[in-house]
């Protein structure tokens, strides 16, 4: 029944139209996607530290995707929630609470509370106001962390973060084996929850608001409330990513709150393709691998090319990597038919 109506909608909008009713089944491609990190774990044992960074940053990018790709809120300060999560987990560990999993939950809750409070300011006003408010709040939190050095360590960062073994068994090691597995499990678990939210009726109604904010109230959707909820969820997920970074690296730098991190995150997301959940993961992987390789050659060149890439994506390559793949597949399918 559900597929029949989906087919009817597709028929009405043409085959290429991006209309999909919520469909929570896992496709084969998705399963294959999640096998990649497992293969990478065994194939590149010396890159496990980098791998866990990619996974965590990927989750962070997915959390921005909820806000930007799904709710359509342009945020220049998403690192604020990442930083809040990182500092929460870090401070807990510094002050004697070394258990990691409960630390994740506390970080998620604190980030969600901050996100909920901020969401009231963000949902008001148009795109430019949102952009400025998120930018301003990100900068404010950076300044707070910078000036409150007696708590946060200021520009030197928060060191002395000691994390107890996970479940009392798996201690963090220097080669990043535990960090990789821990990150993968947490990232996957959070991803499953976020995927479910996005595919739920709630997620669909948020996408409806993005597509036509003026029409949704007419069918009875509480626009501001829906957007606030999505923003809060995005903040909580970013907080978890931040907490993971703090726990796996056992350090919290002030750059977790910085504007550059928010900007780079935006770049990763558009590079992978916004509004498709996997775009963030793909974008983060490509970005971090490229950064690891290119900035080894020269950090200045890296900054130039990342700027160049952004300009090119905006002008010529809408939809990023996944969008490009979709377009290729559509063309291929048409060609063979």
């Amino acid at each position: 029944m559900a597929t029949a109506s989906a087919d009817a909608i597709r028929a009405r909008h043409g085959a290429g139209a991006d209309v999909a009713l919520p469909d929570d089944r896992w496709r084969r491609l998705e399963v294959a996607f999640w096998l990649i990190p497992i293969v990478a774990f065994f194939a590149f044992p010396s890159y496990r530290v980098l791998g866990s960074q990619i996974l965590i940053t990927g989750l962070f990018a997915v959390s921005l995707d909820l806000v930007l790709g799904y709710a359509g809120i342009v945020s220049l300060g998403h690192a604020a929630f990442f930083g809040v999560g990182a500092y929460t987990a870090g401070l807990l560990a510094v002050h004697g609470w070394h258990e990691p999993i409960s630390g994740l939950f506390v970080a998620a809750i604190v980030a969600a509370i901050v996100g909920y409070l901020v969401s009231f300011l963000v949902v008001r006003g148009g795109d430019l106001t949102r952009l400025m408010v998120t930018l301003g709040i990100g900068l404010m939190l950076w300044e707070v962390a910078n000036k409150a050095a007696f708590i946060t360590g200021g520009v030197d960062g928060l060191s002395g973060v000691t994390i107890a073994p996970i479940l009392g068994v798996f201690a963090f090691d220097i080669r990043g084996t535990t960090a990789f597995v821990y990150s993968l499990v947490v990232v996957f678990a959070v991803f499953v929850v976020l995927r479910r939210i996005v595919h739920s009726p709630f997620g669909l109604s948020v996408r409806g608001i993005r597509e036509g904010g003026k029409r949704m109230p007419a069918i009875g959707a509480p626009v501001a409330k829906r957007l606030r909820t999505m923003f809060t969820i995005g903040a909580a997920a970013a907080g978890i990513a931040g907490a993971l970074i703090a726990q796996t690296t056992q350090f919290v730098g002030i750059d977790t709150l910085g504007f550059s991190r928010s900007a780079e995150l935006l770049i990763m997301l558009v590079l992978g393709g916004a509004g498709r959940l996997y775009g963030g993961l793909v974008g983060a992987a490509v970005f971090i691998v490229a950064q690891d390789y290119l900035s080894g050659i020269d950090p200045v060149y890296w900054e130039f090319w990342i700027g160049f890439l952004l300009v090119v994506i905006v002008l010529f390559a809408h939809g990023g990597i996944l969008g490009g793949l979709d377009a290729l597949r559509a063309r291929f399918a048409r060609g063979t038919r």
Partner: protein
Amino acid sequence: MIGNVIGVLFDGLAYGSLLFIIAVGLSVTLGLMNFVNLAHGAFAMLGGYVCVMLMTRAGVPFLATLPIAFVAAAVAGLVLERLLYRHLYKANPLDQVLFSIGIVFMSIAIATYFFGASQQPVSLPSYLRGQVHVAGVDLGVYRIFLIVVVAVLTLALQYMLDHTRFGSQVRASVDNATAAAGLGINVNRVFALTFALGSGLAGLGGGLGIDVLGLDPTFPLKYMVYFLLVVSVGGSGTIKGPLIAALILGVFDVAGKYYVPQVGAFVIYALMVLLLIIFPAGLYGRRT
């Protein structure tokens, strides 16, 4: 104590007038094309580097470098507008933001490549250095110079907007680009010239501001918030709004750093969020 307050106020006004001269172009482009150009500071940085290079490498006197900085930034603005920016006037804000962040990153990398990451020194001519003693207060000569230059420029801009043919074309295009085009105004040309003028003014401000704002490759990022703040609080498409906003911002920033240095730039960011919450519509065009 009173002298102290006047001194801070004066420094704040000089700082604010600099912010105004750099940001006024952004205000016009935002009002005219609805374009969120985060890269506006890059043009100011270009002007700054033109000044420094002409002074240190070619020995050109400081005052003579300023018009060259204006022209260089205006030409760069015109070229970029024709080549890239005009394709994005109809794009959504996210694309504009990403595009201009890209420009910012590239400008930072280019500046680092050619001039190094360090602060550029500027040696002002002797007649602009030192202080004068006015009514019991010491005032920096260069800051008086800044205020005078910006005051003259502001009057000239206001005159241009109010009394010249080009000015009325700009005003008409800001109010309603479609109707203006229908009346035979070449709106594209107005866009391009205004963009060039705004970039040129930013370049001039960048040159004037080396002594006050400093100059290093991160300039466009460091002051981005300030320029955006001037525009968003002042409203776009007018001269008076951004001027008042820039002066208030300058005074608050200097006073904040002088009286409560322990909270740092927090004052400005809090002010920004607060003002945006109180006037969420202050961002869009001219509203009367």
